[in-house]
């Protein structure tokens, strides 16, 4: 955290988790209680929870506009945060999920204020990816993991390693630049399916996942063959999970540099685990 002897204002960025209230960490709750002002970008119900913690909580969601580019909206959010800190307040900016994941204004505000000498920090929150690992029982370290936003995945020449777990976010708003809701057609899914079929068999099982957001409702976990991906109806929070094809072949040349072969490596693992 930067020292700011001449600037009394400070910024702490926090995440409220994916659900209404239960995924907020203790330290996050504490900094919220002690803030001069809380600027929030969370769901309406999570906002009510924040207001219960600190009555001076303001929502920045009214900056969203279907006719405005999301990049412009995020710029306005960042500026609002910066302005409050520069006015000398202890500001907490609260975002849905993890405040550093899929959130540009949080990083941008921290960068700008740090450069200006203000005290800034980010506290981690529970993200959709954290929920995904728990709900699906998929360990991203087992086979490795690649994670992308859907539009970026399609628009850039990424190299898929099909051995790894693939997590593709925001499949419900592929190539959407504003703030769409309640879309009924998703032509981008067919394009995504075609891209993945270059690496996986048509009957490879994939999962449409949505983390649970309220306590009595289960997460969405729909398993389908890959070649049906173009026909599903996603929400804007839907994520595509593509399990990997298993571990790749050993790199015996590299193993030899460590005096190992596949057999001795397996023996080591076995001995270490025993």
């Amino acid at each position: 955290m930067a020292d700011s002897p001449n600037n009394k204002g400070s910024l702490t960025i926090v995440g409220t988790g994916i659900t209404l209230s239960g995924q907020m960490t203790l330290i996050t709750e504490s900094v919220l209680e002690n803030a001069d002002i809380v600027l929030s970008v969370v769901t309406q119900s999570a906002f009510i929870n924040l207001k219960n913690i600190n009555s001076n909580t303001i929502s920045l969601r009214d900056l969203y506009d279907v006719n405005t580019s999301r990049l412009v909206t995020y710029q306005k959010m960042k500026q609002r945060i910066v302005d409050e800190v520069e006015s000398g307040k202890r500001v907490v900016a609260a975002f849905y999920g993890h405040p550093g994941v899929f959130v540009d204004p949080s990083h941008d505000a921290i960068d700008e204020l740090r450069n200006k000498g203000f005290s800034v920090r980010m506290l981690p929150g529970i993200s959709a990816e954290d929920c995904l690992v728990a709900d699906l029982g998929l360990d991203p370290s087992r086979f490795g993991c690649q994670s992308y936003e859907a539009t970026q995945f399609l628009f850039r020449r990424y190299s898929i390693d099909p051995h790894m777990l693939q997590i593709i976010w925001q499949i419900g708003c592929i190539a959407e630049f504003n703030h769409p809701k309640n879309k009924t057609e998703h032509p981008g899914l067919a394009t995504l399916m075609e891209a993945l079929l270059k690496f996986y068999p048509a009957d490879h099982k994939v999962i449409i996942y949505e983390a649970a957001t309220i306590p009595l409702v289960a997460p969405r976990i729909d398993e389908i063959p890959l070649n049906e991906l173009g026909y599903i109806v996603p929400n804007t929070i839907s994520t595509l999970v593509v399990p990997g094809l298993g571990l790749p072949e050993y790199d015996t040349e590299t193993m030899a540099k460590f005096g190992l072969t596949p057999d001795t490596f397996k023996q080591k693992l076995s001995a270490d685990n025993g």
Partner: protein
Amino acid sequence: MTDPLIAFLIELDKDEALKQKYLADPQAVAESYGLTPADIAICVNNDAKAMKQRAEAEGADVVHIYHAN
């Protein structure tokens, strides 16, 4: 004034003992929180659509991302 159903869901989300109590007897626990008969029905019937709508718990408009550079 906070929507009683939302207030109830907020409590349920962070209080495991309350959640277990609710799961054992949804009607009684929902009534004890002063919910209207219509809201009690939403809870008892586990009406996910109605609950999500009331809680506006999609969270979708927070997401984004196009890293142009």
